[in-house]
């Protein structure tokens, strides 16, 4: 088990799962089946792979605004990744987890991790500890 410490945590939590490094960006609408967790974008290198419960490293989200609604639906159905790691802030991914917490009291971890920190770890079991650098609601 390899532990990863993010440089920024957009939506906090603790997660463990197999690391899947996506070599290409993904639009969850048209790219992800919320009912099965399968990548369905037939032009995507991960086409056919199930990402439910994994720790997914994505370069960024492609395309559709509906990505957020698909990810929220995947949380409802228990078919979302356990965590999504990004090289920079991505509002589509973060928003899905924030609204999932509002509606269902659960979501997935969203964190910023530099790509080089993941080099050579594709397919390994990854643990993301609850981090102290969490971005949360500001206090006045």
């Amino acid at each position, binding site marked *: 088990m390899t532990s990863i410490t993010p440089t920024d945590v957009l939506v906090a939590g603790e997660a463990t799962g197999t690391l899947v490094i996506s070599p290409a960006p993904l639009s969850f609408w048209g790219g992800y089946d919320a009912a099965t967790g399968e990548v369905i974008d037939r032009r995507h290198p991960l086409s056919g792979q199930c990402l439910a419960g994994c720790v997914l490293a994505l370069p960024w989200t*492609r395309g*559709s605004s*509906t990505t*957020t*609604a698909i990810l929220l*639906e995947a*949380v409802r159905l228990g078919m979302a990744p356990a965590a999504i790691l990004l090289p920079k*802030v991505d509002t589509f991914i973060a*928003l899905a987890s924030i609204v999932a917490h509002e509606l269902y009291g659960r979501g997935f971890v969203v964190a910023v991790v530099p790509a080089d920190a993941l080099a050579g770890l594709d397919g390994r079991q990854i643990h993301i500890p609850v981090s102290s650098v969490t971005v949360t609601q*500001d206090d006045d």
Partner: protein
Amino acid sequence: MSGGERLSVRDRAMLAGELGPAPALAMSIVSRMAAIVRAPRLIDVSHAHIDSSIYVGDAGLEFAERLAGLGARVVVPSSLNVSGVDEHHWQEWPVAPEWAGKAHRQMVAYRAMGCSETWTCAPYQTQARPVFGQQIAWGESNAIVFANSVIGARTERYPDLFDICAAITGRVPDVGLHTDEGRLGHILITLDQVPAHLQARDEFYPVLGFLLGRLADDRIPVVEGLTVRPTDDQLKSLGATAASSGSVALFHLVGITPEAATVAEAFGGRTPEATHRVGMAELRDARRHLTTNADAPVDLVLLGSPHFSLDEFRQLAPLVRGRRKADSVEFLVTTSRIMRTLAADSGMLRDLEAFGGRLTVDTCVLATPMLPASIQTIMTNSGKYAYYVPGLLNRQVVYGNLDDCIESAVRGRVVRDDSAWGAA
């Protein structure tokens, strides 16, 4: 940065629930997103376009009904994107009643919040068209890129669920495409020996858009070398395809779009991060990517993503006049209620009906499960349809121009005129 600096007195009152429970929930989401993107402040928007209206499952419906149940009302004029069902015509297709019922409940929820019932992914071709410099909060990737690039209105790339929170609060984080600096170009794309006769054709723009999305990813591309002035519908198809194959939310066309009189203006004097040359070889390759199988019989000819405009109906009418599609082929145009009304009032639907064409409004085949299983191969002139059909509908797709689409519908097999693209 503390919330005290970022949020105004009114924002904080909203967050504390002093304006009611729905603004409190919406502001809690807006302010958390503002913290995530490190926004220095929130700013007012004066229009919203709500993509959250698309039904994709119970979660989005529960969110909409939660907000509506809390008495949420939009505080700025808000147009609605497509829904998950053609409200009055879904029974003409094999749409499951359970789906139609839930998608309709989602329509009712957004209607109750005070949104305008535009039900279209091309709001910029309706009364909801914004103006240059206007700060807006838009969802729907093709609408975002059109508003920013062609009109010079200012919106970030907003996802579903956020757009309605912006409309309820009237506030968004002051970052990215809302700011002068955030609108400057990143990469330069130079068209090299692309003939003007090809640039004048509609079928050129989805192909260029596909390439633009692939080259730009989520950066702002600046294109030089266009020698013709594209129409609104051509720019619509360019942006829609670029926002499908990539995450393009703003492009600049030098000498054409409003923030790019020159290359220097488009980049704000900065040096491009990268430059790419695009010639006929690259364009031919991109065009091939929009087709998955050109050899099967055509089952459906599909027009209208983004939604068909009045000009497009005007272009279509004489091409189908006096002709009849093959019985083995469905011919479907997706559009909005208002365009259907305008086209009907202008007498432009008679020829289409006589041809055997059908219309779907409020939604599109990507957003409502309406196609029978017998439809396996779809031909379209839309780059956005061509991009999404294989993954979302698990069907084969053929990309062709409007003449090709009509000719193929008449003959029941793929007919394509490749001559504009030169030797393969």
